[in-house]
């Protein structure tokens, strides 16, 4: 889960990381009031969950509250990479002597969090990695130790010459690692970490991603969720404990298991069509889930046929068959439905489907080919 810069800065501030003063506004009038209370030059920053806001014209400097109001009016409602700007952050402008990058990411290959620091701040870190790999310093961290001051100092002294600056930076780096652990983050970034001409160090931008698997112990995340960030169908699927991703094709797919669901999509493509979605109904075979899955898929008007590919293990094929029958009765789909059910209680499932006249295919390839034929 991604959150906005202003939310990430609140988390940073709570973790003791210095951030410029600022507040979020949803109207130009609010923007003006915030700028007045800050009482100096401010930056108006679009709050959308994509990178490259500056280049898209979503970040502007305002010398007066009037200017802040005017710019907020321009930026609010703007479209940045397909996302509508609904909020702007009005924040104190900071004079910049130097910019650095500090981040903590999870390195899957070594199974450790890695602290990354670069003297080339202010630009996309992946870009820096490509163009100036020598400017990036990485320090893998032992998860059992989290972070010790010496680790943060090692990076801070590598980047800054002035010991006063290094000390402040070291504290910020260590605090950032603590923010990563306390908040179950999958990524935290300060880009740029700015040193002002007077030698103060502050986090001018903030990025925080949360690990969805940890949501059960973070009730506070619900309030941070941006309703625009997720597709409504995906949210509905989630509420039924289904994993769903909308795609552009015309073959609806209902599958149990993520790997098999991907393999089914791939086979649809290989056989000359395009999948309309990824959908994993998971291990449980509750008929309600099957009905919810069908409802979500059938709502997509580009769907021309729906296939079920179920390999029963814990999932019982007869339960899924009952769900399919119930869904067909309840939703009366106008597009053809084809089914493949193999594994636990397969024979019972076939009997149930035969009674309502639904075609059953013996294997994955057959069901995919049949669904494509029927969609034509």
């Amino acid at each position: 889960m991604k959150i906005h810069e202003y939310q990430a800065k609140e988390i940073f501030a709570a973790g003791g990381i210095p951030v410029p003063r600022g507040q979020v506004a949803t109207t130009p009038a609010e923007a003006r009031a915030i700028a007045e209370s800050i009482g100096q030059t401010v930056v108006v920053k679009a709050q959308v969950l994509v990178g490259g806001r500056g280049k898209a014209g979503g970040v502007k400097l305002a010398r007066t509250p009037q200017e802040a109001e005017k710019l907020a009016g321009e930026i609010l409602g703007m479209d940045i990479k397909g996302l509508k700007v609904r909020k702007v952050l009005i924040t104190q402008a900071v004079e910049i002597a130097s910019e650095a990058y500090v981040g903590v990411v999870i390195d899957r290959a070594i199974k450790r969090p890695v602290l990354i620091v670069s003297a080339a701040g202010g630009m996309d870190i992946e870009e820096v990695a490509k163009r100036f790999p020598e400017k990036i310093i990485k320090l893998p961290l032992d998860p059992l130790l989290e972070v010790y001051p010496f680790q943060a100092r090692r990076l801070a002294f590598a980047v800054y010459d002035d010991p006063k600056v290094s000390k402040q930076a070291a504290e910020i780096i260590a605090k950032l690692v603590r923010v990563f652990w306390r908040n179950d983050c999958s990524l935290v970034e300060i880009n740029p970490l700015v040193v002002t001409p007077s030698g103060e160090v502050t986090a001018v931008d903030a990025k925080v991603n949360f690990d969805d698997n940890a949501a059960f112990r973070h009730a506070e995340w619900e309030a941070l969720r941006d309703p625009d960030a997720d597709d409504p169908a995906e949210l509905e699927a989630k509420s039924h404990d289904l994993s769903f991703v909308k795609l552009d094709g015309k073959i609806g797919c209902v599958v149990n298991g993520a790997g098999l669901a991907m393999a089914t999509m791939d086979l649809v493509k290989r056989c000359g069509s395009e999948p309309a979605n990824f959908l994993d109904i998971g291990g449980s075979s509750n008929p309600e889930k099957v009905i919810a899955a069908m409802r979500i898929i059938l709502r997509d008007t580009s769907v021309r046929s729906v296939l079920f590919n179920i390999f029963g293990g814990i999932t019982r094929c007869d339960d899924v068959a009952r769900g399919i029958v119930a869904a067909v009765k309840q939703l009366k789909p106008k597009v053809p439905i084809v089914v493949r059910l193999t594994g636990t209680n397969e024979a019972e499932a076939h009997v149930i489907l035969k009674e309502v006249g639904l075609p059953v295919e013996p294997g994955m390839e057959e069901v995919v080919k049949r669904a494509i034929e029927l969609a034509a």
Partner: protein
Amino acid sequence: MSILIDKNTRLVVQGITGRDGSFHTKQMLDYGTRVVAGMTPGKGGTSVAGVPVFDTMAEAVQQTGANTSVIYVPPVAAVDALLEAADAGVKLVVCITEGVPANDMLKVVRYFEVAGVRLVGPNCPGVISPGVCKVGIMPGQIHKKGSVGVVSRSGTLTYEVVYHLTNAGIGQSTCIGIGGDPIIGTRFLDVLEMFERDRQTEAVVLIGEIGGSDEEVAAEYIQKQMTKPVVSFIAGRTAPPGKRMGHAGAIIAGGSGTAAEKIAAFRAAGVEVADTPHEVAALIASELVDRSRRRKARIVDVRPHASMAAAAKTEKAPARKEPPSPKGKKSSSTSSKPKPKAKSPRSTPAKSKPRPKPRPKKKPGRSR
């Protein structure tokens, strides 16, 4: 011998009194697994399907000599269960639970490293050595004992592939679901090393998917170190970037972790990549035929060498023209190994057939 689990496995089930735990305990017992203990705090002294339940892992291990644990507890309790298992002294822990936070897993995996305990999972179907022992949730009946090792990040997709293998008459030595999460205890590389050493395993099926770079690491190992053939399948060719495809680990992030990259890495390493799950069986069948043919050819080849050596005892030994082998082990095994059984139904190759060259796809020379 299989890998990870066998007839000496003594299993303790963590969360045995829960819905999944009790159901799968019965399934595992039916399959022949020696389930010696169960564990649920507060349920000590009771039993499930005749298996005694303990309050703590320490007790369960002390009193029953359990050496392996399987975890069927919800994500909220999984970390505690994992650490308790490692602490109690079992050697292998299989974690079925889906939804364990990644940062918890970072700590758990590190703790397991320190404790010297092997972890499989989380978010995995478990491990099965067909006909011998099953630890997990996979349907036992689709498996068949044999010589193909299977390793996969997925659950039902593995069943699909195994189903085709079994239908084609190809049995499996051990099938391992390593899990669909980004941080997992055992990775492709670890399992490939085990299969390479395992004498029952003659070929390996690797089922990967989008996300991370473990397939690429595996490809490098296969090319440089592995003598046994590997066939792979990669799911997610049609997955869009930036979207989590069900599994927490199945996501193309920052443009990397795509199926195309992984397929290219395997092909570059000389690994056959199946285009469909079904095709895996056919590719493995031809690899097995090749392998058994090569072995027969080797036997035919060794004899003349031996007689020549005897005849030429007093003379100067002829210069041996041995091609460089990918591994030192391989060349010595040709003579020291007991004669392998001829498994191929095909006729024996002509006696005059020259010693086969090492497969061109394998890079000669050591890498370590």
